[in-house]
């Protein structure tokens, strides 16, 4: 990665012993909801610029981790250290119904003419140039998701958190969005945490894949394949199989190419 050791945050003195060269540093992070331990001791360090995919069954705590990383939720115990500049695509679109689509995209900017231009450019990139002035309620599911994506990509974060951002997109649109995220990552190398249920997607995009199971990390592998990653590559197939096994999916014949 091309990033230097990050400067200390002036307001938050570095806790003793925390590594300063990591963008994300979680140590023994726990989270309990109404008596149930949802996260049971997560250790995770992500260097600046690394692209991490997070896999796991429904309800294992993926969103909970993302909420803690984003600062929207506070761990019950442990150490949490993240970059100040974060951006999130939530699991739901979370658009303000009272604001037009373009205003939603630049919700954090000064809302003047140039902001509108920025928004239009971002919306074009996600294929929604026609819906600039629409109300969020009139969007289709996939359109709303893409607006949320455009909003997250219109800023330049050091940590980009993506919670199933492509879940309701068709194959073609999904591939376009993959390219978009890859481009953004090329441009200024944020650390990325991508939650997905699509193992192939994880392998194609990520430097490193983590599997979460019942609130603990049960697998943490590096993806040592050169890009573009081809599904025909034998190592692709092996990795996929390893991940599917970890997730407990009974091998489907078609997956063994």
């Amino acid at each position, binding site marked *: *990665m*091309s*990033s*230097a*050791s*990050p*400067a*200390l*945050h002036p*307001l*938050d003195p*570095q*806790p003793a012993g*925390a590594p*300063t060269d990591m*963008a994300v540093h979680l140590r023994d992070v726990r989270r309990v909801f109404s008596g149930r331990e949802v996260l049971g001791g997560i250790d995770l360090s992500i260097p*600046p*610029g690394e692209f991490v995919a997070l896999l796991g069954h429904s309800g294992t705590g993926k969103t909970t981790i993302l*909420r*803690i990383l*984003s*600062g*929207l*939720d*506070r*761990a*019950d*115990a*442990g*150490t*949490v*250290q*993240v*970059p*100040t*500049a*974060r951006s999130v695509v939530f699991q739901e679109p979370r658009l303000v119904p009272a604001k037009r689509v373009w205003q939603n995209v630049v919700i*954090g*900017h000064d809302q003047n003419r140039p902001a509108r231009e920025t928004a239009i450019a971002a919306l074009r990139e996600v294929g929604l140039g026609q819906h600039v002035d629409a109300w969020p309620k009139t969007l289709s599911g996939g359109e709303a998701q893409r607006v949320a994506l455009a909003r997250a990509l*219109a*800023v*330049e*974060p*050091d*940590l980009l958190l993506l919670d199933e951002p492509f879940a309701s997109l068709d194959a073609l649109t999904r591939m376009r969005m993959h390219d978009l995220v890859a481009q953004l990552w090329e*441009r*200024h*190398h944020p*650390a990325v945490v991508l939650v997905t249920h699509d193992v192939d997607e994880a392998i194609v995009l990520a430097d490193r894949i983590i599997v979460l199971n019942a609130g603990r990390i049960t697998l943490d592998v590096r993806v040592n394949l050169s890009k573009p990653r081809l599904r025909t590559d034998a190592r692709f197939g092996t990795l996929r199989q390893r991940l599917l096994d970890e997730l407990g999916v009974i091998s489907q014949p078609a997956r063994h190419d």
Partner: protein
Amino acid sequence: MTDALATLAEGASVARSRAPAGGRISRSPQLQDLSPGEARSTRWRQASPWQRRATRLLVPVLILAAWQFVSEAGLVSTYVLPPPTAILAAFHELIVTGELQSAIVTSSARALSGLVIGGSLGLALGLFAGLWKLGDDVFDGPMQMLRMVPSIALIPLFIVWFGINETAKIALIITATAFPIYLNTYAGVRGIDNKLIEAGIIFGLDHKKLARRIILPTALPSILVGLRYSAGSSLLALVAAEQINARSGIGYILTIANQNQRVDIIIAGIIVYALLGLALAAFMTFVERLFLPWRTDIVLG
């Protein structure tokens, strides 16, 4: 959730400093520590319950102090604003004779009957007008007109229609209470997300069940605001209602004191009203907690 949001304040205040500037290729991210239990800037939300209770008392105490000062400095004639000590004496008088106690009982009974009838009426009409165009067409106009009738102007009419006994008094309270619940129910119903209604209809709810299982529970926060308002109105309406041949009640005490120029009692009455307002607010908060367990509060600090 409250805590979750409270933690946000920090994240936000820092995130803001992020410049959405040009295309640097690499950068060293500024880091932020979000670990639990860290010493953070002291914020109001971290104040102890005792601190918070003290603050709640602060404004009333300040008002009291200013008042005593104004009275003692002779800035305001005691005709108009007797000192707090005089009000205390008035309270003493009202309590020793048992008047205040019986007034509260009598008036509460009146206010409550009016509130129950008026509130039910407002709720029913609000649901009807909120959900059906026919209801809207038939009832919204009259309700919008009715609410503008000053209750003082209704007294003569109500004496004719309902006589000079309890009926007339309660009728007056009903007119004062029906409207706020109507308005808030109507708005609450209109504010419900279509999507929920659609789901209800698909799963076979008829209008009655739709109202009971989806619309009422979802509009309840808004309806309870209406109830808050109506409960206050019902007490205020006593001032008008208890001019009609009353022998006791808070409104009666106020009216008589007004005629006697007993400013101390008027102010004591106002304080009783204010305290009732606080009690009502506390009660409504309790009711909201009870009936809206699924709601999560947002608090920024």
